[in-house]
């Protein structure tokens, strides 16, 4: 494929508009992508990013507007057409069939065949070459994709895109479940693709990362393009301001809170899936951050504390009392609450209403002679929806139809309604918009002010540094060091998390 001269954009979208019923998703958006650029597409959830990208891929048709690829008109009829025209998507929900092998996934939809019978030899060679090019020759062609790590799966998707001779690659939140290490490797791959003249549209909520990898940016708000430009010379504050439409005075609001008695103590805790032993003390009125790479044992530690994974050895003490039966129902009665990292799979009952989700872990107040008072229950839910500013039509709305940020707030509302004294929060801000993030940070701080203890697992260092009182860094299932947040820096946390030495 020949690349167009530098002044012809790789992609030009003009006046693209789309509405769903009464909702305007996009209102005459312009978007211009230069060849070989990494172009960040930014905006809060619901700003219209996914709609724009779906139109580009051919999954949706625009109501109005024009698109050109390398100067030539482009009207994709469906995703396959888009793919064949050189536009490939790397989706947030990985776009792979878990039971199929790497090879089968890479060629899915574009199998080479003779009369319906597969021809595999040449294709296998090409896949191998492409994986070599991406510096991932260790990925074997014949293992089912479900056995690969998330990072490796992403490489498989990129491999598929390159094999399609993609000129434009759309990456939707590519790093949201990657470790820092895998993220670095992904950025190397992106650099490599740029040298080949591939243009990349990069959607992410991790703004620091975006600054690191992107050359240009476009910001959408309420279906409109509110700003485009080169990344160099633009500050994060300017970008955030454009995204939310007002200045967020402080992304990490800190309300006064004071450290009290020990609320939760782990003594030599070991679990079925966590190496350990882990020793930690969490005080009332304290936010204790758990940092580390994915797989370092932080999630597993929370799950062992809460009784979701079996405890092998050691003790969990709550308010100085040994927890004997470490089972979720028992831990809840002792005042523990867990917010799962897997919001959709485990954290929420997606098809059920906000009321059902928020009140599920404490139904006792609404029980009379064994029956539930539905009215009181939905009143309580409404109250928490107001407190957390959950945007919904009513307390009866199904959680599945809410945005990610509102879903997460609903999950947090459950812990608040439950009135947990110790909150175990696992990646509470993953994949949600900036405004919701700020609200969740504020609530964490407020809860600490009310004397609650919070264990906060995050893979995103800036938020740990911004929110926590103390931070413990994990390495291979053990705590490397615990220090006040002020005594850590991005670099020292990274060093501890990757080397195990403080």
């Amino acid at each position, binding site marked *: 494929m020949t690349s167009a001269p530098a002044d012809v954009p790789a992609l030009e979208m003009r006046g693209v508009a789309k509405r769903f019923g009464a909702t305007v998703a996009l209102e005459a958006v312009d978007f211009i992508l230069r060849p070989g650029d990494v172009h960040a597409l930014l905006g809060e959830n619901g700003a219209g990013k996914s709609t724009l990208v779906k139109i580009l891929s051919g*999954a949706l048709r625009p109501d109005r507007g024009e698109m050109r690829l390398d100067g030539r008109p482009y009207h994709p009829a*469906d*995703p*396959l057409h888009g*793919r*064949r025209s050189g536009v490939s*998507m790397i*989706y947030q*929900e*990985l*776009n*792979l*069939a*878990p*039971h*199929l092998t790497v090879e*089968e996934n890479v060629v*899915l*939809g*574009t*199998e080479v*065949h003779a009369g*319906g*019978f*597969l021809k595999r030899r040449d294709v296998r060679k090409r896949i191998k070459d492409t994986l070599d090019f991406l510096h991932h020759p260790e990925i074997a062609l014949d293992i089912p994709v479900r*056995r690969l790590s998330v990072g490796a799966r992403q490489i498989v998707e990129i491999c*598929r895109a390159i094999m399609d001779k993609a000129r434009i690659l759309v990456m939707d939140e590519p790093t949201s479940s990657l470790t820092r290490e895998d993220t670095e490797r992904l950025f190397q791959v992106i650099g490599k693709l740029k040298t080949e003249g591939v243009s990349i549209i990069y959607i992410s909520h991790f703004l620091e990362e975006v600054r690191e990898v992107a050359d240009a940016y476009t910001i959408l708000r309420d279906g409109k393009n509110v700003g485009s430009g080169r990344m160099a010379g633009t500050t994060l504050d300017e970008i955030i301001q454009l995204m939310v439409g007002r200045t967020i005075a402080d992304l990490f609001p800190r309300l006064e809170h004071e450290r009290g008695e020990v609320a939760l103590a782990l003594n030599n805790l070991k679990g079925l899936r966590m190496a350990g032993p882990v020793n930690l003390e969490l005080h009332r009125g304290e936010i204790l951050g758990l940092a580390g790479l994915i797989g370092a044992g932080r999630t597993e530690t929370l799950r062992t504390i809460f009784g979701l994974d079996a405890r092998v050895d050691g003790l969990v003490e709550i308010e100085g009392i040994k927890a004997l039966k470490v089972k979720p129902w028992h831990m809840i009665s002792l005042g523990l609450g867990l917010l799962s990292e897997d919001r959709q799979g485990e954290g929420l009952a997606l098809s059920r209403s906000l009321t059902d989700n928020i009140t599920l872990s404490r139904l006792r107040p609404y029980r009379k002679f064994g029956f539930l008072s539905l009215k009181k229950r939905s009143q309580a839910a409404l109250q928490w929806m107001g407190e957390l500013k959950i945007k919904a039509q009513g307390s009866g709305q199904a959680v599945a139809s809410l945005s990610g940020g509102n879903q997460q707030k609903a999950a947090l509302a459950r812990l608040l309604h439950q009135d947990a004294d110790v909150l175990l929060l696992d990646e509470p801000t993953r994949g949600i918009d900036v405004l919701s993030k700020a609200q969740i940070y504020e609530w964490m701080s407020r809860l600490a002010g009310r004397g609650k203890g919070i264990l906060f697992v995050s893979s995103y260092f800036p938020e740990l540094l911004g929110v926590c009182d103390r931070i413990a860094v994990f390495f291979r299932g053990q705590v490397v060091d615990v220090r006040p947040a002020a005594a850590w820096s991005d670099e020292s946390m990274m060093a501890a998390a990757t080397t195990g030495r403080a």
Partner: protein
Amino acid sequence: MRRRAKLQTVINLLAPFLGLILVLVLFSSMPDVQSRFLRVANLKSVATQSVIVALGALGMTLVIIGGGIDLSAASNIALSSVITAYGINAGLPPLLAVLLGILTGGVVGFVNGALITRLRLVPFIITMGMMGIARGVAKWIANNQKIDAPLTWVNELMAKSPHPPWLILAPGVWLMIVLAAATAVLLRYTVFGRHVFAIGSNEAAARLCGVRTNRAKIIFYTLAGLFCGLSGVMEFSRLTVGDPTVAVGLELDIIAAVVIGGGSLSGGEGSILGSMIGVFIMAFLRNGCTMMGWPNYIQEIIIGVIIVAAVSLDQVRHRRPT
């Protein structure tokens, strides 16, 4: 590392046979029946008895790998057998009646597939509806009785002693073997087969990759229907009459065979070899139990246990690598 991977493949390949071997060893060591159980005549009889379920299981394997289910299989078999009998009785040439029977099955399957893709309802609901409709239509056509038909070569298809003796096995058994091989090739070596796995594994991903998921689904439901149609012809051949009340509940035997053979009801997994082994495990169990003179309810309990045991073993086997 590589050696371990190879070992794993060998184990995965052999595992389905273990159940079958276990059943064979069990009955051939029972003093009361061992002399008769492994005798050629008995094996031939088990093979012939398996044909009807096996043909249904071939199609069901496609459907289950594709993430669907077909509850109308048994009703479809009954309807096709009635149509075949009706055709022969009405004086059609037997070959035409047979084709008509098979085609009937295909139409039922096509309607299943078309409704599932058009109405976007879960296959369980659509095929449960079709289960009633096909059975009702069969009874309607047969006027709620059995349809007698003059004996023709069609009734030879399931004869335990086939007409040219060099065939050894009944023509229906040969047909089953050939079609099983063909379906296995279809699944493993064709683009269509791969798409069936992809749809069952992650339908959204398949669609985004440009797989025409609706078309593929209609095709595999239609194929499943055609297999049921053929199975219906065999049912007629065996009974020599078209009986609309035949094969009630057989769809569960067919599904059980696929599941025992490693098919996953959430899609993306399963194999023809596995399903065929599932069919024979159940057939030999029935046969062995009958020979032992054990009452019917014992067979039912044992088969129930086998289904649960086979599937839980399969899960353990899959969980290990991670």
